[in-house]
């Protein structure tokens, strides 16, 4: 079976040029998306580069399985929030369109445009176009106006990634969305896009993906799409989307309540996904290549106005009861966050912190530009969100820069009330909860306190595939590694063994960690939990209490490094493994910084 080739579209906004690169050799070693992106960042972003400068890159990454097992696009960049390597995943049609335009490892965006532009990609037609009429617009208008323009011009529907005012204003956790309800929210990719004066990326591909054996791929795919197992997952996903975890975790003390002070409060009962579904679920929508579609957008026409969006664990779970609200209020707040273009999870921590600081009189009404920021006040929250996006007034402008910058504005006394790890808000999967929380995973993450930093992502985000779309496949085929092996061999014409897949996964994980180590990440100093995780126990609805003991945490962390992350006891990648996996070239750079185990 002939092997396929891999192509990367490189766009230089400074020079206003584009070219197509053959990256087949790198793709064999790292796969696409986040795997290839490690190499691109290592080679092209010099150590110490300001993430919001021209020198940063934005890789809109896809891979051979984008559009086959869900449709994942992984954006990679240096994060303006942490200063370390960042990545953010987004679903929707965009990745499928990029693959169908023949760029099966994605689009690499470099440089900075001298004025607002958008990127137009229609198969092999690549243009950097003026976006002055879109600059300043909110998300929905941006996407609808651009979509209509391109539809009138070409007769086609383009998939569009765009930023809102928060991205333009370089809010450090601004996001990028597509189809309005799919968000790449983590670690400030929207600010990176804004720093390049890039308002949107519009893609339409008609050439089709290159597969080594289309029939073989189709047979695999058909088995999945018509399997009763898939149907059994769809029955859940297509009705509830990902709202069930929010309701469950807030009862099990794994979702922040009142700035993560509480393990349970009756406010959690107002996250009633059943009521939400019956009242506002408008239809179900899914991604290309996914049979168990899990997007369940809501539409609400009320005396307060008209609100539309979609609840996701990541955009709702960490806000909601953390600022003492339920789903009814969140419809209005979530819709606004989507419009402004910010990470709902980061805001979950920051807005709750601001309410806490206001209650404790550490910030005042004057600091907030006249907002009386009480717990559970929808109007006050909406006013604050807008001020954050536009960096207006002292406190909102500080919040727009994230926790670490805000400490210097609000003072030392503000720190104990903060709930963050690595400078990232951590309102979901409460780190104290050792059953359903993510304490060890967040604390040891070289990206920041979010999911998707472990070894498994080395394959799922490089192939890449959607872990929700792959849930039926876990029963039909097996582990994620086995799914990757079977699909990659059919799609790429390779003959990979499960050991090869494990090595790729480990290689990508180590490489990603090395990028953060290169930028100053130090596990000995940075892998911590907030003080309250040790001093403030929480008790869930059913009576279980959670808190960390400091010695216990240190011991568990060592075990986690070694057993779960294949690192040394100090959280560093072992020299022998780096050499074995062909990553020896990072050692001379990382070693002087104490980054090699």
């Amino acid at each position, binding site marked *: 079976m002939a092997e396929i080739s891999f192509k990367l579209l490189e766009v230089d906004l400074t020079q206003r040029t584009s070219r197509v690169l053959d990256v087949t050799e790198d793709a064999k070693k790292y796969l696409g998306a986040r795997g290839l992106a490690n190499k691109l960042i290592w080679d092209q972003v010099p150590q110490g580069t300001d993430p919001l400068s021209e020198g940063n890159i934005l890789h809109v990454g896809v891979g051979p399985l984008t559009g086959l097992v869900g449709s994942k696009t992984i954006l990679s960049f240096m994060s303006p929030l942490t200063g370390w390597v960042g990545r953010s995943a987004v679903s929707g049609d965009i990745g499928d369109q990029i693959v169908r335009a023949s760029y099966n490892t994605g689009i690499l965006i470099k440089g900075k445009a001298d004025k607002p532009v958008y990127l137009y990609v229609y198969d092999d037609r690549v243009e950097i176009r003026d976006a002055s009429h879109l600059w300043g617009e909110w998300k929905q208008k941006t996407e609808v106006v651009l979509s209509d323009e391109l539809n009138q011009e070409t007769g086609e529907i383009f998939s569009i990634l765009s930023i809102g005012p928060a991205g333009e204003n370089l809010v450090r956790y601004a996001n990028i969305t597509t189809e309005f309800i799919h968000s790449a929210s983590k670690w400030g990719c929207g600010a990176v896009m804004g720093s390049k004066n890039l308002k949107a990326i519009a893609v339409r591909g008609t050439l*089709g993906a290159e597969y080594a054996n289309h029939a073989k791929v189709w047979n695999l795919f058909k088995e999945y799409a018509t399997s009763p197992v898939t149907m059994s997952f769809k029955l859940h996903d297509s009705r509830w989307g990902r709202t069930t975890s929010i309701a469950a975790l807030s009862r099990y003390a794994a979702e922040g309540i009142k700035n993560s002070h509480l393990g349970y409060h009756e406010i959690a009962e107002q996250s009633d996904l059943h009521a939400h579904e019956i009242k506002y679920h408008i239809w179900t929508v899914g991604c290309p290549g996914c049979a168990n579609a899990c997007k369940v957008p809501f539409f609400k026409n009320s005396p307060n106005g008209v609100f539309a969006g979609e609840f996701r664990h990541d955009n709702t779970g960490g806000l909601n009861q953390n600022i003492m609200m339920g789903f009814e209020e969140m419809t209005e707040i979530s819709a606004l966050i989507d419009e402004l273009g910010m990470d709902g999870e980061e805001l979950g921590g920051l807005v709750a912190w601001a309410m806490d600081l206001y209650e404790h009189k550490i910030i005042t009404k004057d600091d907030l530009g006249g907002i009386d920021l009480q717990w559970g006040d929808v109007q006050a929250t909406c006013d604050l969100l807008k001020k954050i996006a536009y960096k207006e007034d002292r406190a909102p402008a500080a919040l727009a820069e994230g926790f670490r910058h805000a400490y210097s504005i609000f003072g030392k006394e503000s720190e104990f009330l903060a709930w963050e790890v690595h400078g990232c808000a951590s309102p979901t999967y409460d780190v104290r909860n050792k059953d359903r929380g993510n304490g060890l995973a967040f604390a040891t993450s070289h990206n920041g306190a979010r999911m998707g930093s472990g070894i498994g992502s080395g394959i799922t985000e490089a192939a890449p595939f959607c872990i929700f779309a792959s849930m039926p496949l876990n029963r039909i085929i097996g582990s994620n590694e086995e799914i990757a092996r079977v699909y990659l061999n059919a799609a790429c014409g390779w003959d990979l063994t499960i050991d090869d897949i494990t090595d790729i996964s480990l290689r990508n994980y180590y490489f990603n960690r090395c990028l953060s180590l290169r930028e100053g990440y130090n596990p000995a100093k940075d892998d911590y939990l907030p003080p309250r995780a040790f001093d403030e126990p929480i008790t869930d609805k059913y009576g279980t209490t959670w808190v960390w003991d400091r010695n216990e945490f240190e011991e568990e962390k060592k075990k986690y490094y070694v057993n779960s992350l294949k690192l040394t006891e100090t959280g560093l990648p072992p020299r022998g493994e780096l050499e074995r996996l062909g990553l020896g070239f990072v050692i001379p750079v990382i070693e002087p910084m104490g980054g090699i185990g």
Partner: protein
Amino acid sequence: MTEAKKPEGKSWGKGNYPHPRGVAFIECDEMKCTGCGICQMACSIRHFGVINKDLSRIQVRKYLLPLSKGIQMTCSQCQEEERQCQPACPVDPPAIYFDNDTLHMVIDNERCLGETCMKCREACSSKAIRNHPTLSPIPFVCDLCDTENNGNLNPQCVEVCPTEALYFKTLEAWGYPLRDFTRKHLDEKADLISKRLYPLPKDVVWQPVRRS
């Protein structure tokens, strides 16, 4: 504890339905469509041997209404009195026609004038006749997967649709076989569905302004 009895058959139940008798077509249930495009993959692999949604007879688009909505459309295999494509063909006899023996539309590739003509597509109110400028300039239309034109109808899109949003059915049993009402362009369907979001029709830009 008793174990739930497993249903027989390999597919989701729909695969066990009998095929319709007589003149049949693929009906789209738009509100069930999630826009996954698996029907398109099935169509292109069946007819072209490759996975390429732009070589598919059935079309799926995602519209921003402004919420994202998948909508599908394919040929309605119209009745003679309502058929628009066949009378529009400039070739005599028409190169696109309904085959009364095999009961589906056929395009005679040898006589079709190809992409320079496309009068059939212009005439069809749903634009169900497709072509691809580079990969297949010759137009193609839904043949209910009877690629050999021997009456062996077995539409693959219906078989794989994971949401059962496509029905292989006949209207004859009900006595009213016209499908004027199903024969709508994707854009028209999108406009109609967007009414569900009043006051947010898709051409009106909206921003959530909370009224106190």
